[in-house]
């Protein structure tokens, strides 16, 4: 049920006339649902602004929330949901803050015509549903952001030595993470011009075929680019699984500890550097 132009105008006038009482009553109700997690003054301010938003939308004879005069109100509602979502309030608590406006209106003026009130009420319902939608959207963004941050956190690529970088993998490797690790490692090789990389899997609880595949692909890709990968930190159980699963590590160098891997790489790098001189010195 949409608001007709004069219904909207009547309500705009009412909301304007009784603003103080309305905001106070509204704030009381919201405060009781939020149980003191937002200060009274803060709520009072928020509700004051929202009331102005409602009033402007109604005064502009917005028939529903999608109408042009309600644009400002929509922005306010989106903002409210966004802050509430980030402050950790639930979706219900956020929506109820808007529903409470209806009670406040009903209480503030006796003798409102029922027909008018129902139309007004559905307008507020729309507003509350709108906050619900925005709330969900903000939460989804938050979750996506956090997932991404977690990926970044959990895949550091560190420079161990001149020309040697290492990725200490910690936790379960799923396909998405493995992909990120792979890309990050290869990019670091290019950025630092390091011809050696050590993938340390001490912190990986289990290796299945998929994880092994990802590691193998990384090693092959690094080789194509002209870098060597060494896998270190293979625990006994993991070695057993690898063999049991029939995964071929081929000619990829594997070491039991990061220290061994580094020693191996340094020896290899030294050999390359000095091959010329040492050969010349030999009789």
């Amino acid at each position, binding site marked *: 049920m949409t608001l007709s132009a004069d219904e909207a105008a009547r309500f705009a006038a009412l909301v304007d006339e009784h603003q103080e009482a309305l905001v106070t009553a509204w704030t009381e109700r919201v405060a009781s649902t939020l149980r003191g997690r937002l200060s009274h003054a803060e709520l009072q301010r928020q509700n004051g602004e929202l009331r102005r938003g409602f009033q402007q939308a109604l005064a502009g004879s917005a028939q529903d929330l999608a109408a042009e005069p309600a644009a400002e109100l929509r922005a306010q509602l989106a903002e409210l949901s966004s802050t509430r979502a980030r402050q950790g309030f639930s979706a219900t608590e956020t929506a109820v803050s808007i529903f409470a406006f209806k009670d406040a209106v009903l209480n503030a003026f006796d003798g409102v015509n029922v027909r008018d009130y129902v139309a007004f009420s559905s307008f507020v319902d729309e507003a509350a549903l709108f906050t619900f939608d925005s709330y969900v959207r903000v939460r989804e963004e938050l979750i996506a952001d956090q997932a991404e941050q977690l990926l970044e956190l959990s895949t550091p690529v560190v420079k161990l030595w001149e020309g040697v970088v290492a990725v200490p993998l910690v936790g379960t490797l799923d396909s998405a993470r493995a992909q990120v690790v*792979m*890309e990050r490692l*290869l*990019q670091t*090789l*290019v950025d630092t*011009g*390091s*011809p050696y990389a050590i993938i340390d899997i001490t912190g990986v609880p289990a290796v299945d075929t998929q994880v092994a595949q990802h590691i193998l*692909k990384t090693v*092959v*890709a*690094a*080789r*194509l*680019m*002209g*870098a060597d990968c060494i896998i270190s930190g293979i625990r006994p159980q993991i070695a057993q699984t690898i063999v049991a699963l029939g995964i071929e590590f081929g000619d990829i160098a594997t070491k039991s500890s990061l220290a061994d891997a580094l020693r191996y790489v340094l020896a290899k790098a030294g050999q*390359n550097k000095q*091959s*010329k001189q040492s*050969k*010349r010195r030999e009789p």
Partner: protein
Amino acid sequence: MERVPVLKIGDILLVSIQIDMEDQVALQLQEDLADRIVATGCHGVVIDISALDIVDSFVGRTLATIAAISKVLDADTVVVGMRPAVAITLVELGLSLPGIRTALNVELGMELLARERADYDDEEEDADGEDGAETPAVFTS
């Protein structure tokens, strides 16, 4: 048709592929390089593909052919600067570029060539020392 320039730096020919090559251009490069190796007597070829945002099986095959031809003409080939995304794609595509040596950048590529040349020269010197024979004549046109 565009052409990929081949530069001579010391004992090395440097090819930096900066364009999205059509197949004919790649084949032309293959010919040009063979001619230049013989004309200059260079023993090393560095092919920089850091500007290529894809390497498909045709370009991959051309690179392998270039490496093989160079080998026959007594020059080592190093492909340098492959982008990570390209390497990942090649792995997925199933192209492992056998017979092609690679390095992360031009500098490391030139080091690799210098090292191999040094090893090779040493072996020749050792061989000379043992039987005291003359360095065998090299067939060039």
